[in-house]
């Protein structure tokens, strides 16, 4: 997805000093075009309107609950407008086969699919990979069964040769473990409210589930981490704290992270194996000019 340019007014700046990217429902977005934004569409009419008339300020459309509408995907495949799509699939275990509707769309515009980690999500992951659709996986707080499914998904991502597209958060974590400077999990999943400011139908800011709406979102993740530390959460001793920053303690701060740590360990182990392989690799002069790191 495109990064927002640095032209927002100071009060819209995030804690990091970079501009925050607002998300507005389609009904409100028309009045918010002073700077970059993401438009959230959840009806065929809004989808087609913003698809056809998206001004350059629109970074992408977040499309919710519309995968089952074949006509709109035919329209999205028809026009080579620049606007990218983030297609949210709320029930990936049952809706996964409808991802075929995006096969033609991704030929004319950037398309990413986002889905929550609920039972059966790995079916959607497999098909998205087969269709070359990048994935953003929202893990929530997985129970033991979901952790096992998540570990299977990690194995698929790491070892299936058909996977050529990024699967987040696996991709960025693997990159970070391979020495590529990156960001934390909140940012990678576009869940840091300092940077990604979501608004409801009334225009009020939406805070992460379980978070208090006061004070203002600035510094939210830092304050959340500090609160966890004060509560004696396991995060302070966790080797993946600098990447995770307590993400898996939301909304339930008592969530036990043992399963998630196995996921991070599996990815880190793979990164280590890659480093070993790369160290033993003798590049040709042509290859030596190319970076072996994950892009």
């Amino acid at each position, binding site marked *: 997805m495109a990064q927002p340019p640095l032209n927002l007014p100071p009060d819209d700046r995030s804690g990091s000093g970079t501009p925050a990217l607002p998300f507005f429902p389609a009904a409100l977005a028309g009045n918010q075009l002073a700077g970059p934004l993401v438009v959230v569409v959840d009806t065929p009419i809004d989808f087609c309107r913003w698809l056809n008339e998206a001004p350059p300020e629109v970074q992408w459309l977040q499309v919710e609950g519309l995968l089952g509408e*074949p*006509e709109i995907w*035919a329209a999205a*495949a*028809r*026009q*080579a407008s620049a606007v990218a799509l983030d297609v949210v699939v709320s029930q990936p275990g049952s809706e*996964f*086969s*409808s991802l*075929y509707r995006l*096969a*033609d769309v991704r*030929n*004319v515009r950037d398309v990413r699919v986002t889905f929550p980690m609920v039972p059966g999500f790995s*079916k959607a992951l*497999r*098909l998205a*990979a*087969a*269709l*070359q659709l990048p994935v953003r996986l929202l893990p929530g707080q997985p129970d033991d069964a979901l952790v096992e499914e998540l570990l299977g998904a990690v194995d698929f991502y790491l070892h*299936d*040769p*058909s996977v050529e597209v990024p699967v987040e958060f696996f991709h960025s974590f693997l990159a970070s473990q391979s020495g590529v400077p990156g960001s934390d999990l909140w940012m990678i999943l576009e869940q840091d409210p300092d940077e990604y400011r979501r608004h409801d139908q009334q225009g009020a800011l939406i805070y992460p589930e379980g978070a208090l709406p006061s004070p203002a979102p600035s510094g939210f993740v830092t304050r959340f981490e500090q609160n966890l530390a004060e509560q004696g959460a396991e995060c302070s001793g966790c080797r993946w704290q600098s990447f995770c920053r307590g993400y898996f303690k939301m909304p339930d701060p008592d969530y036990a992270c043992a399963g998630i740590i196995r996921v991070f360990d599996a990815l880190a182990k793979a990164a280590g194996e890659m480093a070993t392989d790369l160290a033993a690799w*003798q*590049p*040709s*002069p*042509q*290859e030596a000019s190319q970076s072996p790191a994950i892009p």
Partner: protein
Amino acid sequence: MNARSFSVILLPTAECNVACEYCFEYKEPHRLSPALVPLLTKRLLDHMENEDIAECEVYWQGGEALIMGPAWYLETRDAMAKAARERGRRFVHYLQTNLISYSPAWNDVIFDMFNGSVGTSMDFPNHHRKLFNGSADDYSRVWRQRLDEARAAGIRVGVIAVLHQGSLAAGADAFYRHFVEELGLDDFQVNTPFPGGPANDSAIEFQLDPAALATFLGELFDIWVDRGLEAGVALGPFDALIDHFTGRPARLPCIWKENCSNQFISVDSKGTVAQCDCWVTSYPDYYFGNIFREPDLTRMLSESPARRQFVERPGKLVEDGDCLECRFLSICHGGCPVRTYSALGTMHAKDPYCEVYKVIFAKAESEGRNLRQRRTAKAAV
């Protein structure tokens, strides 16, 4: 306008000048009238405009496409090009012919309209392609003569070979030698057969045991890698698979597209629209409509219940079958609907050649890996 591809397999006639025993087409003596070409062109251009498609590939075949005569093609080409130019679009033409009636009179058309290239078909050994008043040997002799004449005129000829029991009995080595060494071809393709249309005795020859077919294709693949790959022999679909598994842009055959209904349609001389030539010539229950009688092709395609079955097929396969678990899903998507339908009576099942494809995919994957390593080593030296 977008980069989405759109192709039309156009059958200007169902007539044919030969009598192949296994042909599944109904050879009605009907030809596309020049008077209808402007309407056909308009319908296609309307659709391209609706879909924001700049270029349409037109694959002319039959019946036998050359029956229409060179003048008919030149007139048609001009009419289509003029109409397309006026609407800022383009047609690109390809020709598939049995070559039997080829003569130098076709050269101007082939160079002007088809970029000096034609596709044709021949099997090895040829048991079933016959002239109306001649044997399979007579057919082979005439075809070879025409092939040589066309190539002598500078025409590039690609050949499609359909495998049958005799091919498997002859073996992969004899098969490869025939096409590459005896015929001197450097561009040919092997197709798996399917029993389209009404059953006949010859159809049995084309019902191949998947294990035997997999063995044959595996051996053919190895022979091609050994003798043809580095020598510049293009053998489809192996060459496209090697491109895929070495990270190069690959033009995989239609049977392995994520959804062939997104890619092309077929139109016959009466205007019947269906998914591909196999469907338009054999299975009336699956017609999408008629391009002359219905004013809006885009609407026909979006509303046709028959086409919806094609659109939904890959999704149903990953829901109901085991395709989702297959590591080759990204390059197969359940295979060919017509091969499935003709074998099983439904298109909502995976291709009956699934296990054959897996053998080829695995071989290409392995060879692709070797090839990358060899190229890396070569670059290092």
